[in-house]
């Protein structure tokens, strides 16, 4: 499968998808509202994306254009055709709600816990959003650009 074929399949299924083909892999932007059904189609549909190999988030608040923007980034590939696909979902930084995909790809359960504690993204219907790496009583979201910790952090 090529990027062009990926693009055709996605356009046919989800007309609101926006593509970015600047990189080696095909990037596609999906609206948060249709993310859950799109994710289910990714796994079960023609693309058969059965492998979620990276799940992370970007905080754009340090840039002028992204003051209230968080971007969820999902990297998929399939064990059948091996063509990777990057899915991005833009979230409101002040109200970052997105549906969990851990019922579709089990690995997302831990990855979403990590993103939740470090970026403060709220994954709706996630079964267990306890902190994963940080201590249980940790306050704040340390990978957000405006994170401050005057006690533990020595500024250079």
């Amino acid at each position, binding site marked *: 499968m090529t990027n062009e074929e990926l693009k055709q399949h996605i356009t046919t299924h989800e007309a609101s998808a926006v593509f970015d083909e600047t990189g080696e892999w095909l990037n596609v932007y999906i609206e948060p509202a249709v993310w859950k059904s799109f994710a289910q189609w990714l796994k079960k549909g023609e693309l058969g994306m059965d492998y979620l190999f990276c799940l992370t988030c970007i905080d754009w608040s340090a840039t002028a254009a992204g003051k209230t923007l968080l971007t969820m980034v999902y990297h998929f590939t399939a064990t059948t055709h091996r063509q990777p696909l990057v899915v991005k979902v833009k979230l409101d930084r002040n109200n970052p709600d997105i549906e969990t995909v851990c019922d579709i790809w089990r690995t997302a359960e831990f990855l979403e816990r990590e993103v939740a504690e470090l970026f403060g993204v709220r994954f709706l219907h996630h079964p267990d959003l306890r902190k994963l*790496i*940080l*201590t249980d009583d940790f306050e704040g979201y*340390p990978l957000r650009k405006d*994170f401050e*910790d005057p006690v*533990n*952090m*020595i*500024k*250079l």
Partner: protein
Amino acid sequence: MKNDLQHKEDFPGQIHELPGGGIIISSFNDIVNWARSNSLWPLTFATSCCGIEMMSVASSKYDFSRFGFEVARATPRQADVIIIAGTIVNKMAPVLKRLYDQMADPKYVIAMGACAISGGPFFYNTYSVVKGADHIIPVDVYIPGCPPRPEALLHALITLQQKIKSGLTREQIRSEKPTV
């Protein structure tokens, strides 16, 4: 026996040959420290890349078993020395303290690498790293480096042995007035 021991410069005592056998004159503490320093069992403990260098020192090329460190233990209750090989983060700090508390006396600590000494490259702009393992447990020997060369760890191990052979506890060394 005389020939065997007197060729060892660090043997803590004197041997007097008498008809019918020799006599060793020494102090009991010196003998104990001498024996102790030559059989130090390290705890299998590494938190980051320094651990790879520590494994290298354990393997055939550098081989710290030449100095009596080969019996790496997976439980602190059987270990004599803990080599802090790597970054200690805030969440690891209570674990390190508990491991140290579980070790039986006498116990020794080596801080290996910049992270264990001061937080190293994570001293600035990090919310999660302890700025030096000696904030948590007392350290006997510090090895600088990022990570230190295997030779540097060997040097630290030998330094620890010398420290033990000198016969003073860490507390005694601290409180001792310098002799002029």
